[in-house]
């Protein structure tokens, strides 16, 4: 079971504003989806993840610059809803 309050908390964490009616409806829908997914617990049994290495693993590249500084700055900033020179403009966080 998922409650409306839980949905509202999750929505806040996910930074998504939802109407109270939607939270109510989502609580029911998410509950149904999670019930359906519940059968996984049985199937997964006691497989120990630390011993059973998964097929998918992260591939990392070297943390080095891949292009000249400012090469794409102007192109990318033209897509910004609000900018100040070479910066994205956001509201201040600390009051």
């Amino acid at each position, binding site marked *: 079971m998922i409650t409306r309050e839980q949905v509202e908390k999750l929505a806040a964490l996910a930074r998504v504003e939802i109407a109270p009616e939607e939270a109510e409806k989502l609580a029911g829908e*998410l509950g*149904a989806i*999670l019930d359906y997914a519940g059968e996984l617990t049985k199937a*997964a049994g006691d497989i120990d993840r630390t011993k059973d290495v998964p097929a*998918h693993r992260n591939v990392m590249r070297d943390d080095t610059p891949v292009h000249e500084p400012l090469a794409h700055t102007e192109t990318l900033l033209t*897509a910004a*809803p609000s900018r100040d020179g070479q910066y994205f403009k956001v509201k201040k966080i600390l009051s």
Partner: protein
Amino acid sequence: MIDLTTLTISKASALLREGSLTSRVLTESYLEAIKAKDTDIHAYLEVYNDALTQADAADALLKAGKGGPLTGIPIAVKDNILVKGKIASASSKMLEKYVASYDATVIERLKKAGVVFIGRVNMDEFAMGGSTENSAFGATKNPIDTTRVSGGSSGGSAAAVAADMALAALGSDTGGSVRQPASFCGVVGFKPTYGAISRHGLIAMGSSLDQIGTLTKSAGDAELLFDAMAGKDSMDATTIDLVPVSVNKKMRIGVPEQFVASEGIDPEVLSNFRSSLEKLKALGHEIVPVELPSLPLALAVYYILMPAEVSSNLARLDGVKYGLHVEGKDLLEDYRKTRGQGFGKEVRRRIILGTYVLSSGYYDAYYNKATIVRDLITKDYKKAFESVDVIATPTAPSPAFRLGEKTENPLEMYLADIFTVPINLAGVPAISVPSGFTKREGKDLPLGVQFVAPHQGEARLFEIGKQFLAE
């Protein structure tokens, strides 16, 4: 006038290269078809204003004898693949005016091959859905029966090809989003091995599942596009250069009997599937049963892992860097209003579900369990492919359903992915080819059969697809 209904890329390309057809004439034919039909179907969100300029450039290449198998071929692009200088909205209000600042790797490769991009086509918002009814810009209707859905999420791509409004289209497939609409619209839908085609420039949904695929009139056309797009790309760390597997002309085809006959499958779909198996036998292939015991759990796994990845991938859309921005009283309210109003209902649902399954205390119960069962499914396939060349199932459990029929029940909509989702979880390639029709209210609705191959077994899919369609 060219007969577009029977035209394929390979036929058109032969005409273009011998000089009896120009890309301009061909492209104009498709533009006219769009003008004549798309008001009813709504496959296109935008027809590019430079399509004919691209066609002229392709004609110059062809004239100089530098044309390849895709030069001058008009294709449609799903609205989540970036074409530099064009809008890529993922059919969302969030990105309604977003102009791509670079070409996706697949676009770059196809541009080099001389492809003409005719426009961008509709989809479920951020590729989340199975009917295009989640598009912020209205659903795409099925060209065969406009009271029915085109399937999804690549519904615009499938409808454009089925209605001869493009010779082929690009789509993306996270849980069946290329194959299911292909089945609903009666065209060929192909999803390659995970890592075979770069996703650089594809708007991400579930990154451990997403692949770019194709919608075409023939299996041979899917192969032509695949060859032009596949291969390692430094911009997508998951990409590999394929080491092709062996291909037998006469194959052993595995059928997961129990799974295919499970509850909720349309009886007409089943009988059509049986006829497909008979046809394959007549072609000299051997049909054998295979065991894939974890398959019935695939949907449950998918609806944990996919929303988890969605919630993380879509966190980047915050109204600061690009896309929609809605003003609030402070930064937090900017985020919440932008994301609340920019995302549609299904996207919000999946973000919140994903946030739940990844949250502390539930992570182990859901996400971790799902990854364990995912590995079991992958192992099932691996084992099955020790004794068969390919596996066959229906592509979808039903023909195209009615517009609005499943919009109120997300779980029921999700069940439409039952045969396609396991393939994405295992990362193996699959192709859906038209297998006949079922009559509903006087309309012949298309059905599809899906062939699945082991990792990097694309060549087997093209071979069996061509044989099945007598290409």
